[in-house]
């Protein structure tokens, strides 16, 4: 078990190459790894310890800072040539400089240089954990993967956790304790605060307030209780701009107590969403829901589920549904009532028909249907959903209630209001803000900033010196979750121990340690807090075993929540049940509604300095680096605005100017804005990107409200989208890019999927014979039914393959570098379209058009059917890209990879070459992983690499919906072979006779015959 050594303090100290005062051997050892790895450390000095490195770690904007975003790097000619020539290697008349090689002084046992280790840990968002396995090279975490043993993850992850490894190495992270703008130290802070705590304890801490984000950590909960016991008068507030208040209030309405709702989608024949986007990474339980949903969408299984979406702002969930009813968010409550049987409210003919047939379906599937309310719908809708599910007898079958995952399910909005009130009243002497950024994201109407600035002592603990840190007397640089100990709950209640993968790069502190100081136990370490807590939970001699096991597996046995019996509070139900006929109406249908949504990529703004996420195309619009206001096609036409035009949005007396994005499927008289952009102090990637819409938001109506004014103003704004053209129509034809059918059609003739190319379309004898002879021939299938467009594969690939970020301007030039992209197509009526997601990696064509035209043979075919791309042979004619019908090849128009910033060097995957300027690159089917398995097998003297199911490409591994399957097509029993045998299997553009190894399973929808036509 490796975590033992991990625990051992000495390691955690030494591991970190960045640690200021000590250049140590493990650091140095990274050297060994790197010199054999792809990176090109020119000298030890550059790597660690010595001056340059120190300087970099401490400069606010490290060298090469601008490269992330600038079109044209400011680096000197020689540097460019140097790097490029380094790639060219010995053959390009260049002489390799002497490379130092630095061994350990004492080598830790489990380390085998050249072999990665995997550690289980967990990432937390809004209190909900994503269980992870993290790949570590010589104690440098390089790749985040889902914990495939964990019931919630089963190997799947989400974009936020995938990208968090970049967050760890972000050179913009806060690296010091700051006091009044000057670099200070943890020691000084302790002195100061311990002194003042003396007089606080007199007043039982009446002047102390703590503001944190939602947390589910049992250890932290315990510690906070202890803290509050020590200072009974102190208060602990919780606020996150995107929270579950509605859900908990709804639960209180229905049951009189806050509960979490889990949906068992694998048991659901009919799914009805009330403005709920459960296929979005921010939704608690996303990975499990995506998997369960996909499980029930197999048209060959015979029990394919049917999904109805009633929603305002379009979401992946809505677009994947079989029937989607676009309505304003305010009208959802009324429709919910109708579903519950009420006759109140007015519906258009079409809507009425829709609702009627939904009701019919629900009744027909009592106990096997589920109604899912949206996080941002008001409590009433949640209560109604509970009521309907109860009526339908779904509770216990498709719907399960449990204790809340978060330790403190209090109403966060109220909590924030209280805090502000106290601050205004001058009751607060010490405010400790941890991990949240209220000065940026608190609702406009509480005027947090004013009250805040009245507090005499403000302390901020956070990863960045953000807007809030700026206004605090003390800022303490927090440890990243990959640097510190902790524990956290997944949405099913299971606890995971968070263990550090690397010693704190900048000597950061965790909230545990800060609380330790506040509770007068300055020596307390996060490790002790967590371990002590669990020792209490698991007393007895076998604790060590228990502890190791929990760390190794990645979760603590027996912590999973069991379903909870909840009884309806009658008086509340009376108003929510069928008889009710009045709703919080959105006023006249002409009143314009504004929706506030967390951004699909950067959530509430906390990830805005994560360049991977910034450059990640949003699932629907494919926008990068910006947020725009979504307007429906009808409304846009009426207003005479086009995408990229600037409009002024006024609501609640505040106004914001932002650019328009015309989003197909958006309901009329309704607009959507996304939170989290317009940061002022985020870092190089985040600062200044997009537009801040928090000023429009109030505590009363945090998610949507009517009465917004939208007026066109002069000027346009550059929006960088990776997919300018989002339909399959070209000229007067529609191209068979995504092939689809309804379940009925598919049942009648499964071979609807025509256009199979003739077997032999060539004068030449092909290589088929050779491919057959090979024991292995790699292939991939992508099931368009399962793909929910969550983008997870893109980030996974970016992390695994050292893919560079190019910045907004380059994206706008069409120079983004993602090896796998997810295309979104909208067909039919733009106001209520059919939409499809299609992930596109390299097709690894057997008759690859790209290979034929490369003058230097830099891209050729391996015997196992891989379309190899040899970067160091490429001279950059770009002919291959021109000749690639799928346009999956990516070109380094500039030196996009950051060759300077030391943090990024630590982050890179040493098994993949870091590409230089002027070379082509593309998906390799993760050839480094294939090689790893091949070598493993061959060393054991067998030819059987038993890869099926074990050897996974990064995209496949991260996919929560199992849409991507990779394997050996020469083995008839492999998963991929079986899928390729299906009749809905088709090759993209296969009429070109490129013979792609990557094929797609056509998308089959399951519409309700009643509602068709």
């Amino acid at each position, binding site marked *: 078990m490796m975590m033992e050594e991990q625990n051992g303090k000495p390691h955690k100290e030494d591991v970190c190459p960045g640690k200021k005062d000590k250049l140590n051997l493990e650091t140095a050892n990274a050297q060994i790894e790197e010199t054999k790895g792809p990176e090109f450390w020119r000298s030890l000095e550059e790597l660690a310890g010595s001056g340059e490195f120190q300087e970099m770690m401490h400069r606010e904007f490290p060298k090469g800072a601008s490269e992330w975003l600038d*079109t*044209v*790097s400011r680096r000197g*000619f020689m540097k*460019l*040539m140097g790097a*490029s*020539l380094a790639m*060219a290697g*010995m053959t*390009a008349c260049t002489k390799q400089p002497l490379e130092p090689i630095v061994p350990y002084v004492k080598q830790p046992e489990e380390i085998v240089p050249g072999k990665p280790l995997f550690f289980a840990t967990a990432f937390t968002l809004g209190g909900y954990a994503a269980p992870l396995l993290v790949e570590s090279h010589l104690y440098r975490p390089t790749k985040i993967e889902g914990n495939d043993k964990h019931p919630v993850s089963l190997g799947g992850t989400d974009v936020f956790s995938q990208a968090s490894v970049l967050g760890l190495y972000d050179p913009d992270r806060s690296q010091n304790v700051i006091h009044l703008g000057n670099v200070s130290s943890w020691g000084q802070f302790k002195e100061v605060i311990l002194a003042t705590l003396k007089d606080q304890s007199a007043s039982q801490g009446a002047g102390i307030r703590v503001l944190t984000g939602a947390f589910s950590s049992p250890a932290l909960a315990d510690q906070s209780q202890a803290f509050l016991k020590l200072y009974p008068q102190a208060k602990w507030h919780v606020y996150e701009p995107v929270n579950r208040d509605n859900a908990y209030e709804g639960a209180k309405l229905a049951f009189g107590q806050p509960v979490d709702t889990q949906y068992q989608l694998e048991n659901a024949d009919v799914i009805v969403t009330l403005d709920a986007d459960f296929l979005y990474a921010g939704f608690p339980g996303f990975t499990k829901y995506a998997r369960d949903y996909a499980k029930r969408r197999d048209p060959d299984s015979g029990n394919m589920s049917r999904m109805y979406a009633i929603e305002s702002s379009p979401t992946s969930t809505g677009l994947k549904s079989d029937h989607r009813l676009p309505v304003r968010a305010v009208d959802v409550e009324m429709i919910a009532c109708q579903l519950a049987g009420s006759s109140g409210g007015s519906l258009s003919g079409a809507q009425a028909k829709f609702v009627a047939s939904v009701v019919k379906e629900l009744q027909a599937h009592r106990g096997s249907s589920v109604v899912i309310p949206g996080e941002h719908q008001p409590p009433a809708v949640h209560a109604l959903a509970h009521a309907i599910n109860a009526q339908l007898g779904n509770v216990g079958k498709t719907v399960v209630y449990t204790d809340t995952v978060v330790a403190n399910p209090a109403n966060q909005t109220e909590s924030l209001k209280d805090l502000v009130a106290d601050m205004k009243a001058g009751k607060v002497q010490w405010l400790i803000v941890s991990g949240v950024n209220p000065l940026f994201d608190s609702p406009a109407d509480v005027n947090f900033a004013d009250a805040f600035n009245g507090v005499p002592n403000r302390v901020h603990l956070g990863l960045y010196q953000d807007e809030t840190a700026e206004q605090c007397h003390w800022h303490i640089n927090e440890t990243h979750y990959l640097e510190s100990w902790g524990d956290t709950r997944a949405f099913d209640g299971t606890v995971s121990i968070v263990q550090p993968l690397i010693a704190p790069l900048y000597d950061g502190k965790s909230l545990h340690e800060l609380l330790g100081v506040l509770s007068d136990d300055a020596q307390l370490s996060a490790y002790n807090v967590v371990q002590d807590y669990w020792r209490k939970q698991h007393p007895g001699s076998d604790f060590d075993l228990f502890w190791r096991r929990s760390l190794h597996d990645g979760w603590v046995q027996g912590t999973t929540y069991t379903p909870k019996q909840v009884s309806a509070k009658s008086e509340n139900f009376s108003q929510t049940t069928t008889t009710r006929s009045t709703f919080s109406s959105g006023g006249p249908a002409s009143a314009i509604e504004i929706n506030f949504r967390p951004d699909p990529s950067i959530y509430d703004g906390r990830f805005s300095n994560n360049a991977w996420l910034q450059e990640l195309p949003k699932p629907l619009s494919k926008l990068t680096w910006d947020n725009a206001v979504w307007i429906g096609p009808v409304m846009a036409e009426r207003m005479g605005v086009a995408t990229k035009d600037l409009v002024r949005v006024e609501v609640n007396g505040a106004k914001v100017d932002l650019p328009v994005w015309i989003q197909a499927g958006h309901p009329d008289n309704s607009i959507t804005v996304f939170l989290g952009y317009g940061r002022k102090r985020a870092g190089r990637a985040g600062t200044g990107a997009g537009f801040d819409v928090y000023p429009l938001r109030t505590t009363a109506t945090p998610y949507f409200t009517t009465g917004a004014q939208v007026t066109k103003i002069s000027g346009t704004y550059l929006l960088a989208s990776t*997919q300018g*053209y*989002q*339909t399959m*129509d*070209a*000229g007067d*034809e529609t*191209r068979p*890019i995504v092939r689809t059918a309804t379940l009925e059609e598919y049942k009648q003739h499964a071979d609807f999927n025509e256009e199979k190319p003739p077997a032999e379309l060539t004068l030449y004898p092909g290589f088929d014979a050779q491919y057959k002879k090979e024991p292995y021939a790699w292939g991939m299938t992508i099931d368009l039914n399962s793909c929910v467009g969550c983008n997870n594969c893109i980030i996974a690939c970016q992390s695994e393959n050292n893919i560079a970020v190019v910045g907004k301007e*380059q994206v706008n*030039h*069409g*120079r983004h570098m993602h090896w796998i*992209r997810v295309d979104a*197509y909208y067909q039919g009526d733009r106001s209520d379209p059919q939409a499809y997601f299609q992930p*596109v990696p390299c097709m690894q064509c057997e008759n690859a*058009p790209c290979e*034929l*035209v*490369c*003058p*230097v*043979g830099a891209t050729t075919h391996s015997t196992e059917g891989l379309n190899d791309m040899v970067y160091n*042979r*490429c*001279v*950059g*004619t*770009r*002919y291959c*890209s*021109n*000749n690639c*019908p*799928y*346009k999956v*090849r*990516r*070109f*380094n*128009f*500039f*030196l996009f990879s950051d060759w300077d910033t030391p943090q990024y060097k630590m982050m890179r995957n040493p098994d993949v070459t870091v590409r230089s*300027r*002027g*070379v082509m690159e593309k998906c390799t089917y993760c050839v480094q992983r294939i090689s790893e398995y091949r070598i493993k097998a061959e060393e054991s003297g067998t030819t059987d690499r038993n890869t099926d199911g074990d050897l996974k490409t990064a995209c496949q591994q991260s996919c929560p919906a199992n849409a991507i399957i990779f394997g050996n097509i020469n083995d008839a029993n492999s998963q991929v072979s079986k899928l390729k045998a299906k009749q809905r299997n088709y090759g*993209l*553009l296969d009429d070109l006779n490129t013979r792609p190894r990557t094929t797609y399973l056509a998308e089959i929808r399951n519409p309700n015959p009643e509602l068709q036509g």
Partner: protein
Amino acid sequence: MADLMQVEPGEQKPPVIAPGHNYGTVTDKIADVVLKKPVSLGWLGGLFVCFLILQWMLYGVTLLFFKGVGVWGVNIPIGWGFAIVNFVWWIGIGHAGTLISAILLLLRQSWRNSINRFAEAMTLFAVACAGMYPIFHLGRPWLAYWLFPYPNTMGYWPNFRSPLVWDVFAVTTYGTISLVFWFVGLIPDLATMRERTDKKILKYIFGMAALGWRFSARHWSRYETAYLLLAGLATPLVLSVHTVVSFDFAVGIVPGWHTTIFPPYFVAGAIYSGFAMVLVLAIPIRKFYNLGDFITERHIENSAMVMLGTGWIVAYGYAFEAFMNWYGGDVYEGFVRFNRFHGPYALTYMALLFFNLVVPQVLWIRKVRINNFWLFLISLDVLVGMWLERFVIVVVSLHRDFLNSSWGMYYPTQVDWAIFIGTLGFFTACIFLFMRVLPAISIFELRTLLPEAESVKHE
């Protein structure tokens, strides 16, 4: 070439050389342009301007090498932009020179004798311009030599299936042969210069360059054979070069590229633009160096006719391309046609049709054919038109290919323009220098056109 021979009935063909010339006068008139004529301000000024423009290219190229091809408008999907457009355009222009010196020689079109010298020079300079681009457009230009098969430490070779490798061989061969052809043609005239100049230093230089040519009958015999052989080899070569260039596209699967019509239609286009360039040069030259006696209306008119003829071949190419797009019934090919007429670049396509097909039709009128001013303008028009054609083929085909999701747009940057216009400066600068240092018209070949020389042939 049919329309070269035909003579409108009733019209008297103007002579190839103005009457009243003999061996001596011919020699003097041409040689003196170089040896006696004082350096004119106009010449200096022109050279200076071209030199300035050339600096602009150097600026562009420096930027390019410092920062990478990203300074251009190229992207994914449009991996090739101005660089390749200009490459094809320049190579095409070069073709007229070889055509005049080689093909017309074989066809015994003796009138070509008075324009082949600078036509060949033009070829050389055009090929030089063209040759730069394939290197510029590489992502890692310092590795360009990897395209040649040389015994390297990688034990690896170029891919001979790639049209780009074919290009390397075709273009280098073309350049070499053109250079040799040009030099061989120069040898006797260099000898003439050797004797005509009074400056010792020039005597040495011309003397060395002439390799000691002494007009011996035996030498002439071998000379003529070699010259004829070169012509015979250059003819298939010149056809093959633009065919190979067209393969760069025809071998690709991009809709709008993958066409069998390309080779002939590219060659015709090449000659079309080539003759346009010949006229653009010939008209001012005969004016400013009053060589009107040797570059007569006959030459001007014939060139105009060649343009008219090749223009129609090109027209056929366009028509057939569009027809096949429709007749082929392929979704993607069909869309190429649609996109050219209705896509974002529709204007460029319309413009090219107008410049290449409509305007040149005025050449049917003889008055226009022999009117230097109008002919000059039309030639410029054709040059622009043919450049647009290459732009449409390269960019407009690429910007919308198979998957709608990957469609993109191409906007040239100032570096694109700098390098393109820069090569124009380079080209004209070379022409200026050439006019000053070498006989712009083949003296000895002109002698053979004189009546007194004709007579000996028919004994």
